[in-house]
């Protein structure tokens, strides 16, 4: 019954031939992302904008009007109300700017009386969220540096460079998709991007490991097509593993996206996007990039003794 076997190694698939199209596609995606980010920007959540947010839930389905009325009782007018949950029994109200401590107490008391559970009030100055984002950015940058060094020692510098380029692409794509859909950026989103980064490294290294192994078997790289053939074979040999791994991780991520708590929906969605981007970049981008760079280096080394001989 279950006879699927992604046995691609025997099929004649060429993942290298159209590399220029992949490069153009990748660059186009990055440009589109850059345009999106500079025009629409990001929908920064309360973690990055100063304000107050009140989350609460009720036994009964809620309406926006009802919530506005309840806030009016304590003399407040929310700037934004979003309903959530299967039957709209959850809601969150956002206030730009801070609420006084007394107002927070009023809200908590009143909403507990009305809905029977204490609402969740978060106040934040954007400074903390921004610091966390900047800190995550710096830490990721340093992590990338560490990876390049390790890969340069274990493999070769060019592998590290190509892996980091793919990693940055994956993270950037996730951020761009969030800009396009104007989904809220919050602190868990940063963790999601970090997960994508971790997965991307893992995926690229597995592919590169096979390329390295197969390149070692060749005595000498005679032409670009020769090296391209080796890279293509390596990609096909690891293709089953790449697909099976992404499918299994997607099972977990999609389940949490669709079934998990409201609070981590967008977080799981970011991981789903990142997994797909990571698979694309390992299959169609990272290895091809390494191939082009590596062949340039080989050519340069080949030409060097010749030019020196000419001079002397």
């Amino acid at each position: 019954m279950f006879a699927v076997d992604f046995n691609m190694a025997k099929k004649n698939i060429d993942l290298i031939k159209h590399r220029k199209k992949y490069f153009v596609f990748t660059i186009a995606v990055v440009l589109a992302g850059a345009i999106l980010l500079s025009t629409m920007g990001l929908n920064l959540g309360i973690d990055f904008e100063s304000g107050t947010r009140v989350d609460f839930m009720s036994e009964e389905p809620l309406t926006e009007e009802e919530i506005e009325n309840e806030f009016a009782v304590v003399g407040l007018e929310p700037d934004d109300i979003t309903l959530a949950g299967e039957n709209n029994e959850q809601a969150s109200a956002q206030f730009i700017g801070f609420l006084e401590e007394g107002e927070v107490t009023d809200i908590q008391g009143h909403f507990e009386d009305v809905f029977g559970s204490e609402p969740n009030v978060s106040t934040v100055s954007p400074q903390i969220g921004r610091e966390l984002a900047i800190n995550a950015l710096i830490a990721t940058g340093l992590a990338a540096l560490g990876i390049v060094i390790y890969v340069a020692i274990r493999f070769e510098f060019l592998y590290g460079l190509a892996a980091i380029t793919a990693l940055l692409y994956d993270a950037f794509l996730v951020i761009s998709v969030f800009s396009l859909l104007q989904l809220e950026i919050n602190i868990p989103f940063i963790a999601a991007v970090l997960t994508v980064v971790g997965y991307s490294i893992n995926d690229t290294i597995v592919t590169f490991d096979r390329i390295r192994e197969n390149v070692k078997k060749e005595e000498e790289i005679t032409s670009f097509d020769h090296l391209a053939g080796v890279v293509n074979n390596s990609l096909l040999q690891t293709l089953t593993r790449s697909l099976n791994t992404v499918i299994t991780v997607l099972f977990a991520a999609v389940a949490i996206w669709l079934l998990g708590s409201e609070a981590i929906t967008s977080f799981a969605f970011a991981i789903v996007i990142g997994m797909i981007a990571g698979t694309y970049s390992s299959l169609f981008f990272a290895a091809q990039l390494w191939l082009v760079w590596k062949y340039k280096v080989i050519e340069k080394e080949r030409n060097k003794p010749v030019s020196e001989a000419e001079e002397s």
Partner: protein
Amino acid sequence: MGKKWGRIGAFFAIIIAVGILISQTAFDVARSTNLGLDLQGGFEVLYELQPEDGQELTENDIQATASALNQRVDVLGVSEPSITVEGEDRIRVQLPGVEDQEEARELLSTEAELSFRDVDDNLMLSGEDLEQGGASAVFDEQNQPIVQLTLQDGQEFGEITEELYTNPPPENSLVIWLDYEEEEHAFYDEIGEADPAFLSAPSVNEPLYTDTVTIQGGFTLEEAEFLAEVLNAGSLPVQIEEVYSNAVGASLGEQALEETLFAGLVGVSLILLYMMAYYRFMGVIAAITLSVYIYLVMILFNSIQGVLTLPGIAALILGVGMAVDANILTYERIKEELKDGKSMKSAYKAGSRRALGTIIDANVTTIIAAAVLFYFGTSAVQGFAVMLIVSILTSFITAVYGSRLLLGLWINSRSLNRKYWLFGVKERDVRRGL
């Protein structure tokens, strides 16, 4: 024949033993996991330390403030508080399960700097002159709650009262302040108020050579107990200001956790089913080692007192992915070797060996990333990194050694020889030797 059944017997013995262990303790393990605020509900405040003008904040100040806050948290009776110093001048206090957030906030942020002053606000005695832990709430003759303090030096108090009692009223008052601010407070401004900023201003009618002082501030019993506890916990060496606070209602957190656990369960079940469908016999081994993996991660995570948060769950998902990946890498290699026409035993050996290098490289690179995130990151990023490191180390043990042990027992029993379908390999794909 005997050896064959011995190995298969050993396999089932291990499975049954592990199965019993997990089913007997999994519930306790899950229950003893410390949940973060975003999952459990509670209250979190980030304070910024504000040294007095021109003064540098020393490492000592920060540690002293953190330990003073810690003592106050003890007063609240929170079971798993977390007080962490962040950056150079911040302290994060997390109080899971705290119900009365206003009380917690008040208790934490008061400086609790007690001072005795004369009517012209000159300092006579300060909190430093109090005996450590000498404050208590008692009742006076009228059965009014009062706070009783013990001084280090009764002689000094005697001299002060000696000086004061000769003054005409109200200049013979000894004003007791909590958190006196030089520019804000003055006795004569407050004396007319209905609710003065000072605690009390008793008249001194005779010299008092005693080390026991009482404060009659018209307290309720609760207020008196609160003040005594705050004074016993000690004052804060440095002023603090709240820069961020986050309150999570318990029921919202509870529902979030239930939904997320259910979703995680569905996700993991799908992974196990897929692995068994695709890799057949090896998939069953993978399902066993993955279950052990999740169990071990939770035990390890608890033993290092980790706090599970949403970012932690993200890292757990990534860890499951990497554990599955280690299995898949090995099985794919074994399948390749089988298709190359190798015997079951040598395909298993060569496949495991060749996959190991890849698994190590992939895991080490991710651990480097996680270690850097842990070292340079803060709060949420750190929580993610800790869980990721624990996950990767555990996945290495279960997916590499666990898998090898279990699969090895079957392979070496030779009962699987030539049963290619059990490995999801089609017989016609196997390259025949000569």
